């Protein structure tokens, strides 16, 4: 060991010297690269969680996940279906172009026209009208409560610049136009793009002309994708990067035990649950007549068999919190009256199964993604053992995420793991319309063959249209209570975020996983 001391001191000295010379450079590593600098290229929360530093919307989420003005300094409702936004006047894009109403209208068409990935997000909007250079009216197709929420995830681009580089549609896979947005970006945000080598490195510099008061003290951000978990952690431990988002669970202790390193934690908006086929009349391969999952007693028995505290202790290493409903406590309209989960009671579960007519249990296939959620594989393996205790034989079927995300919405699974965070809307409406509403057209895409209740469906539509928070709360609570009482999903837990970084960095860890670097400081 003695031999190693000298080089270490030397290296540490060099590193300290280099850091001083570089001013405040935040070196940031992540498991993958963003696919494009185009904020309209995909409704991909991962990309937007980084691009939010370069582009801005009319409104934005603050550190506490509340809506605050961004490119619009104020707004008012003219009527139930008409909103007026007053744009900030002193804003320029990174290339110096002034920000005006024309850019808003351009960005609306670029992101929202048919065939664009954001068409669904902007679907409630019928028309955008320029009143003057800094005032824009949005006419809605119907009453819609989440205009502001959705606008926080829709970023404004510079009309002039985009036309210049020939990128006026985001999803052009037939020509090379999309390639330009690989390495170019012109937003209004706190950081601007200075260098980009796709899949190798992306360098952002602080925007000196940013309209907002600067709270961060970063001069530069160097973002490097490192796909291998162990290598990424090694890069942090060796001092080559300062910050990694989502430290792998098995490495958290190691990072915390290393001098000069820390792990910042925060609750994630995402809750993890099992969804079930509650529509089919029979469950192939179950070994019993009919579909046992249609019986609420069976669903409750499954929920009672899940030792969620045990999962928290031995698999999540404390980094999770059991939940009773799909809403994480940090979600708006969370109802504390409904926070008691179904208690773990394998004996009671067995009795309930017998009462439902399955004293000898049955067979289920559990479909599970490998790598979509924290420790998803281990949780599913644990569930196999837990359900075996009450007589349900579970066959586990693991899938790579890309296959999983195709087959699940197609209704190919009858018992499956899913997690939902309600992003980017951050409202129960998004959670409900995707995973609770009966599948029909645009709604219930992630609830195939699943829970269906006409009253709940009706409430969900109203939740999307109701402006009055008190009335919304009432309806949201009713949906949650019905879901809980009828065990529409087997609820497991809320994930925690665990971000590894050096002591020099002070970050915020918001529940939507966005890296809002304008709140970060380094010393």
């Amino acid at each position: 060991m003695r031999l190693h001391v000298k080089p270490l001191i030397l290296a540490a000295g060099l590193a300290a010297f280099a850091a001083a010379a570089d001013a405040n450079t935040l070196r940031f590593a992540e498991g993958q690269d963003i696919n494009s600098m185009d904020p309209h290229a995909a409704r991909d929360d991962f990309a937007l969680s980084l691009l939010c530093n370069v582009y801005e919307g009319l409104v934005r989420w603050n550190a506490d996940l509340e809506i605050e003005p961004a490119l619009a300094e104020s707004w008012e409702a003219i009527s139930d279906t008409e909103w007026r936004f007053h744009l900030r006047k002193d804003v320029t894009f990174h290339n110096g172009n002034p920000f005006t109403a024309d850019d808003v209208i351009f960005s609306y068409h670029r992101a929202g026209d048919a065939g664009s990935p954001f068409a669904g997000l902007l679907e409630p909007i019928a028309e955008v009208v320029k009143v003057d250079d800094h005032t824009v009216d949005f006419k809605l197709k119907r009453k819609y409560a989440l205009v502001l929420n959705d606008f926080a995830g829709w970023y404004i681009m510079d009309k002039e610049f985009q036309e210049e580089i020939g990128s006026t549609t985001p999803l052009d896979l037939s020509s090379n136009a999309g390639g330009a947005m690989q390495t170019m970006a012109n937003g209004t945000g706190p950081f601007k793009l200075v260098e980009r080598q796709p899949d190798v490195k992306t360098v952002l510099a602080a925007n000196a002309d940013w309209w907002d008061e600067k709270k961060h003290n970063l001069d530069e951000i160097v973002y490097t994708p490192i796909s291998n978990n162990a290598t990424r952690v090694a890069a942090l431990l060796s001092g080559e990067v300062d910050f990694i988002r989502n430290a792998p669970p098995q490495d958290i202790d190691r990072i915390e035990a290393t001098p000069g390193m820390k792990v910042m934690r925060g609750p994630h908006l995402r809750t993890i649950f099992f969804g079930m086929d509650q529509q089919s009349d029979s469950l192939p391969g179950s070994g019993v007549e009919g579909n046992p999952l249609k019986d609420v007693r069976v669903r409750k028995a499954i929920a009672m068999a899940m030792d969620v505290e045990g999962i928290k202790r031995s698999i999540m290493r404390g980094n999770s919190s059991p939940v009773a409903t799909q809403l994480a406590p940090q979600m708006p309209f969370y109802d504390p009256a409904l926070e008691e989960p179904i208690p773990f009671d394998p004996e009671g579960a067995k009795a309930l199964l017998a009462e439902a007519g399955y004293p000898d249990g049955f067979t289920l296939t559990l479909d599970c993604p490998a790598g979509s959620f924290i420790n998803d594989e281990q949780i599913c393996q644990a569930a196999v053992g837990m359900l075996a205790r009450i007589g349900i034989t579970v066959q586990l079927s693991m899938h790579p995420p890309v296959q999983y995300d195709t087959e699940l919405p197609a209704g190919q699974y009858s018992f499956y793991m899913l997690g939902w965070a309600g992003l980017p809307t951050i409202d129960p409406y998004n959670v409900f319309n995707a995973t609770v509403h009966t599948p029909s057209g645009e709604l219930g895409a992630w609830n195939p063959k699943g829970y269906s209740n006409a009253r709940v469906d009706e409430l969900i539509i109203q939740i999307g249209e109701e402006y009055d928070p008190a009335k919304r709360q009432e309806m949201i609570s009713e949906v949650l209570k019905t879901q809980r009482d009828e065990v529409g999903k087997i609820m497991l837990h809320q994930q925690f975020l665990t971000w590894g970084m050096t002591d020099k960095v002070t970050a915020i860890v918001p529940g939507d996983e966005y890296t809002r670097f304008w709140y970060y400081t380094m010393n």
Partner: protein
Amino acid sequence: MIAIVLRRLGSVLLVMLVVAALSFLIFNFLGDPVNNILGVNATLEEREALRRALGLDQPTWVQFWHFLERAVVGDFGISYRNRQPVMDLILSRMPATVELVLCATVLALAVGVPMGVYCALRPRGVLSRVLQMVSLIGISIPQFLLGMLLILVFSVELRWLSAFGRGEVVEIGWWSTGLLTDSGRKALIMPVLTLAVFQISMIMRLVQGEMQEVLRADFIKFARARGLPDRAVNLRHALRNSLLPVVTVVGLQIGALIAFAIVCEAVFQWPGLGLLILQAIEYADFPVMAAYLALVGFGFAMINLTVDMIYLFIDPRMRRK
């Protein structure tokens, strides 16, 4: 002669067709890129519309036919993930992999051949036994583990080398190289070592085996009887005669390494073809995967063809067949 060459070329085309067709069949089981492009919140109609726009709603054989039509003129389409022409993407990643593989091969030859010669000359020596044991480990240790061990020692503990990436690279035309900068050369050390350890062990064992065989041959005995110095007998006569199979195997290995440096590239975040194909698989980026597989098939077929040609020249008996 020409007939043989033409027949071989025909089989190259057939191999590539089969590879491309197989890759298209695999796509059906891989999942749907539409999800990745549109995100989880996309509606069913949006998914269908994009699927139609990309031609993914058509039967596999129609998609395959369209792919062939365009591939013939070198157009492999646009990557779903990078939104760049696939050929540009592959060409921009190629230098990193080629540089890695060539450096590893040079290192493997420079170390493996002398070791093999030494072991052949002194098969019972202590050092030979040690080398043989070490080479056994070299052949059996998984690349992934070796790479992680190197990172743990040289990056995390000693902090001498970077755990990831290529360092600074210099662009020369469309080629990029890390050999001209300090950080680029340092970045090569661990990945090259990881990739070379297996090669070193294999070359050493190959040289040793071949040379021991040759050393027993009559012409070596005759050379010794002529009173030639040991150096000349061992290096000029014995080694030369044992190198031919080594060259063949190393040549084939270069092809294999370029195609399968995936593990090494993933461990060190080496921005080459291996990493590209890995990311393409995760994203279901069909155009990249199809082009990559077809090109790898082409590369292997060409290497085999070249080897066959060389045999034709070396061995006149094959020409008569």
